[in-house]
C-alpha cells in the first residue's frame, strides 16, 4: 500500500443470499485522483460504494479509508469520508441551513468552524439563495446539490458520490462536474455513473464493473483506445465487390450492407489504414463519398469487455 493511497479496497466480496453482488474487487485510489465507476444497472457499483462508506458490511475483504479500517476503526475512517448515496439522505422537513448545521454536528466539525464551513459549502454547491427554504420544497436538482453539500461539508479526504448528476439540468451538470474536478485536486474522489461523457469529463481513471467483477481498470486514455474501434464505414457510388476489399492488406473482414455501403474491419496495429483506404478508393475510381471511423457506445464496450472476461474464464 503506497503512503498516499486514501482508499484501499482488498478482495471485497458481498453476497445477497446466493447472489454474489461484489466478487473479489480490489483497488486503490490516491490523493488527487478521480476514479469513475462505470457499469450497467445492477452491476454492483452502488453495493461497492455502500461498503466503502460503511453502510453495508462486506461478506469478506476489507476497506481502508485513509489507513483506517472502516469496520475496526469506524470513527477514524468515517471522519475523513463523505458519501452521497444514490438517493440523497435528506430530512425533508428541515431547511437547508438547519440540515447542514445538523450534518456539521454529526460530522464533528468544531462549533466555531461550522458556520464558515457551511457558508463555504453552500457557495461551492450554489445553495446561497436557498438556505432558508425547506428541503422538501426544493426541486430535484437543488436537493441533489444539498446531498453533495452534505458529503463535502467537513472537507473529507475521501468523497464517494453515487450518480451525482442524476436529475440535474445541463447547466447544473456542468457546474457539478467542475466541482468534482475541483475536489479531485486535493481529495480522492470515487463517482459512479453510466454516462460515458461524464467519465471522460471528470475522471482520471476508469473502472468498469460487471456482475460484481472488475473487468476494466485503466486511465481515461486507455478507455479512449478501447472506444475507437478498427472498423470503418464507407459508402461508394461505384463499389467494388466485397471480395476485392477483403483482399486489401490489413483488412480482417468486410460486411456488405448493400447500396454501396460497406463495413470494414482492419488490424488495430494498422493505424494508417483509413488514409490508405481513401488513396486506394481514389486511385481505383470507386467514387468514395462517405468514410467514418466507428466509435463504440458504452454498451458495446461493456459487451466487449464482458465477452473478453467470459472468454478468459
Amino acid at each position, binding site marked *: 500500500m503506497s503512503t498516499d493511497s486514501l482508499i484501499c479496497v482488498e478482495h471485497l466480496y458481498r453476497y445477497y443470499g446466493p447472489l454474489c453482488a461484489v466478487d473479489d474487487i480490489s483497488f486503490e485510489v490516491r490523493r488527487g485522483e478521480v476514479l469513475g465507476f462505470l457499469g450497467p444497472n445492477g452491476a454492483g457499483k452502488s453495493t461497492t460504494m455502500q461498503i466503502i462508506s460503511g*453502510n453495508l458490511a462486506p461478506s469478506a475483504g476489507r476497506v481502508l479509508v485513509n489507513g483506517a479500517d472502516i469496520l475496526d476503526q*469506524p*470513527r477514524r475512517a*468515517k471522519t475523513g469520508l463523505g458519501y452521497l448515496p444514490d438517493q440523497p*439522505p435528506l*430530512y*425533508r422537513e428541515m431547511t437547508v441551513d438547519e440540515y447542514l448545521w445538523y450534518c456539521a*454536528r454529526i*460530522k464533528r466539525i468544531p462549533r466555531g468552524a461550522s458556520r464558515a464551513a457551511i457558508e463555504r459549502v453552500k457557495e461551492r454547491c450554489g445553495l446561497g439563495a436557498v438556505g432558508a427554504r425547506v428541503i422538501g420544497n426544493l426541486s430535484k436538482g437543488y436537493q441533489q446539490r444539498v446531498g453533495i453539500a452534505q458529503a463535502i461539508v467537513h472537507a473529507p479526504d475521501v468523497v464517494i458520490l453515487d450518480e451525482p448528476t442524476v436529475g440535474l439540468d445541463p447547466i447544473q451538470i456542468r457546474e457539478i462536474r467542475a466541482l468534482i474536478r475541483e475536489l479531485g485536486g486535493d481529495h480522492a474522489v470515487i463517482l459512479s455513473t453510466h454516462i460515458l461523457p461524464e467519465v471522460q469529463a471528470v475522471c482520471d481513471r476508469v473502472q468498469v464493473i460487471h456482475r460484481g467483477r472488475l473487468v476494466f481498470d485503466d486511465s481515461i486514455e486507455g478507455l479512449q483506445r478501447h472506444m475507437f474501434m478498427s472498423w470503418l464505414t464507407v459508402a461508394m457510388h461505384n463499389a467494388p465487390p466485397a471480395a476485392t476489399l477483403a483482399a486489401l492488406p490489413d483488412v480482417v473482414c468486410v460486411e456488405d450492407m448493400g447500396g454501396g455501403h460497406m463495413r470494414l474491419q482492419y488490424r488495430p496495429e494498422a493505424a494508417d489504414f483509413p488514409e490508405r483506404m481513401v488513396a486506394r478508393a481514389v486511385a481505383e475510381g470507386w467514387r468514395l463519398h462517405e468514410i467514418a471511423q466507428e466509435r463504440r457506445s458504452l454498451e458495446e464496450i461493456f459487451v466487449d469487455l464482458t465477452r473478453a472476461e467470459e472468454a478468459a474464464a
Partner: protein
Amino acid sequence: MTVLAIAGRELRSLFLSPLAWTLLAVVQLILGYMFVTQIDFFLQLQPRLPGILDAPGVTEIIVAPMLGNAALVLLLIVPLLTMRLLADEFRNRTLPLLFSAPVSMTEIVLGKYLGVIGFIAVLLGLIALMPLSLLVGGTLDIGTMCAGLFGLFLLLSAFAAIGLFMSALTGQPAVAAISTFGALLMLWIIDWSGDGSGGGLLVWLSMVRHYEPLLRGAFSSADVAYYLIVIVTFLVLSARRLDSWRLQH
C-alpha cells in the same frame, strides 16, 4: 455531543410535524377531563372525610388515580410517538447520513431515545400542571405526587425504549406502532394469569405492578431497577439491530 445533536433534531422534527401537537392536545384534553371528574368525586366525598379515621387526602383521591389513568392513556399514545424514530429513517433512506458519519450505533440509538425522552418530559410537565393547580386552593402531599410523576416518567421511558426497538425492526411506522402497542399491552396484563400468586416471574414482569407502589408514594429501588433494566435492554437491542442492519439489508 453528537448524541445531543441527534436528539435535538429528533425533537425538532417531532414538533415540526402536526403529530406531536395533536398528541399533546389529545392527551391534555382527556387527562383534563379525568382530572375534573376526579375533583368532582373528591367534592362529593369531602363532607364525609373528617369522620373517617386515617382518611385519604387530596393527593390520594385526585392525583394518584389521575396518574394511574394517564399511564393507560399514554400506553396508547407512546407507540405513535416512537413509531417513526428509525422506521422513517429506513423508509426515507436517510440512514446513510448517520452511517457514513463518525457516529457509533450507540450514539444514534441514544440520540433518538433522548429526543423522545425530551418530548415525554414536555408531556409530563403539562400533566404535572393539573395537580399543581390545586395548590392555589389547598395543599398537596408533594412527596407522594413527585413519586407518582417520577413513576410515570420511568414507565413512559420504558415504553419509549420498547417503541424505539420496534421501530428499528421495520421500515413501516404503522407496523412499529402496532407491535409496540401489542408489546406494551402484553406487559401490562401479563400478571392476569392465575391470581398473581403462582406466577412470580409474570408478576415481576408486569409494568403496572412496579408503577402502583410509586403512585402510593412508596419509592422502592427494586421498582426503579426494573424500569432501568427494561430501558437498557431495549436500547442495547436497538443498537445491535442497527448494527446487523448493515449485514442484511
